């Protein structure tokens, strides 16, 4: 039952993000999240822009309304945390090593990511961006 309430809350969150649904229009859902262009330059060199890489390469699932965000929001709420924690960029309990392990090994519904998806240099940058717990 708790889960069903959470799902209802998720739908409501989505509705809030949906600017102005037309009268009698489709059921509210979050708008498409345009991802930034991947940063220019050599993907193998250190010093990539972690936030932009994250949004461009992980944004398929980890921006508002994405598959990863939806599942993590549910998990976070089950654990008694606020729904915003479903967005990885709002987490302050992730470590760099944990981020790297999940990206390379996959976790739950998330498949593992190859070095073509995310190079080691890009992963370092993303891990630095998300790994606020050190």
């Amino acid at each position, binding site marked *: 039952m708790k889960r069903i309430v959470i799902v209802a809350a998720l739908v409501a969150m989505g509705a809030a993000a949906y600017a102005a649904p037309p009268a009698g229009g489709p*059921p509210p859902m979050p708008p498409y999240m345009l991802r930034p262009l991947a940063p220019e330059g050599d993907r193998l060199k250190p010093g990539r822009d972690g936030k932009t890489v994250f949004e461009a390469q992980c944004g398929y699932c980890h921006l508002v309304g994405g*598959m990863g965000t939806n599942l993590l929001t549910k998990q976070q709420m089950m654990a008694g945390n606020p729904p915003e924690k479903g967005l990885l960029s709002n987490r302050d309990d992730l470590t760099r090593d944990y981020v790297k392990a999940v990206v390379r090994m996959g976790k739950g519904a998330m498949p593992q990511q*190859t*070095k073509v998806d995310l190079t080691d240099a890009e992963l370092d940058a993303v891990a630095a961006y998300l790994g606020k717990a050190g």
Partner: protein
Amino acid sequence: MKLHLPPRVSPKQFQSAMTAFAGVVGKDWVMDSDADRDAYADTYAPGSTEEWPASAAIAPASVDEVRAIVRLANEHKVPLWPVARGKNLGYGTAAPRMEGTVVMDLGRMNKVLELDSTLAYCVVEPGVGFYDLYDKIQREKAPLWLSVPGNAWGSVLGNALEHGIGYTSYGLHARNLCGIEAVLPDGDLVRTGMGAMNNNPAFHLFPMSYGPTWDLAFSQSNLGIVTKAGVWLQPAPETSLEIVWDIPKAEDIGWVIDTITPLKISGLIDQNVFIPSWLGKMVLKGQRKDFWDKPSAIPDWRVEELLKEHKLGYWQVALRLYGEEPVVKARAEVVKAAMKRNLAAAPQENWWRQGDPIGQYDTTMGVPSAVPLQMSDWIGGRGAHMGFSPVVPATGKHVLDQMARSRKIIADFDVDFYASFTIGGRFANNVNMLMYDRDNAEEVTKMRKLFDALIIETAKAGYAEYRTHLGWMDPVMETFDFNNHALRRFDEKVKSALDPNGIIAPGKQGVWPAAYADKRGSAYKGGQ
């Protein structure tokens, strides 16, 4: 994952091939560590990923690099398994059919080379994903729509070449391909259609070659590596109307098909009409254990209860019309009147007009989404799925017959029945989704046996799959038995002539080059 060498290749030969490949792409793009092999394993493997192990992956950045690698692969007798973005989830992900094959990941070749709003097409490289193309169209404010598959994480070309389907008027994705550039097994480079002439501006517009037309010979194929192709796109319509009917009973699918198919064939409905069963909605509402806490299949009485509780029909038809408003209105009247003959309840109608926002999950409006993959969470653990996907004639009789058969087999295995039918014209694609926890060995074994049974029983009834997982490529090819497997003989004659070393994707779709003919049926023994 430990190193599995390709057949008849020594560790020394393998190492020298890797060194030669690194000379082309740079050592960073030759990925041959244990962790790299894991990264290219089948993420939803029904069993051990070591049944379909890659020895390494290599990622070229240009056509010239692809050609150079193919030549070296011939020299070193190291086979290649080309993938566009390697996201063929449910069918093997990026993993190769034959052990030790080197994955050629084309994900770095990700340029949108042309985007033409006037003639509504684009030219893309294999690494361009649905999201990439959608973002490009949004940025350029091009009046074009995509057709996207249920999971849009993958490649536009990869999906079309694998015969993927979407849910718009352009939903038969292989049909949208026009004008292909491919590297052949000897490293030669060919362009099909009008592209066979230098600088011909109709390369991606006229769908046939002068003489034999080869475009689709490169789809579900191991005859070449597609390095770019034209893809026709839908002009953004003025308006769109979604009409939603909840269809109460499983058996109602018969009249639904008989109502919609003639309208689809006549052109009044131009969309690929996707008809998912109730479970398609349910998997997004929580986890299986929230609704049925036993490992056994959800019984019919509980299904009835759930449909009532959640106000769902057994099926949902969310049909979408596209075009100028008066035309859409007129079409809608015809469709509604046809449906009303069997269903009194008025449908829900959702209008969209140019300028209105489009939601993130509007796949029937060409918006890419990976949210359907949330179904992995339904079972829990390392949730995975495989699709059993036969094609049937789009009549109520055939569809009901197919449904009854799959449903009974799936029930006999005590597994939940999660089916959808997509009406693509004169045919319907039936996908039976089988969801399982990869870490539950007993469940995985059961699913494999079930998959075997579905293929065999469905073939006995005269129907075949349009696409399948690596582990069943040989068994499914085996079902195409006209004139003692004449199609496979032809495929393999062509394959062996073009690719004497069997370098490109040996075993793909059950087509084996002479060089690896002894590998047919290897690795997977069926339901064990």
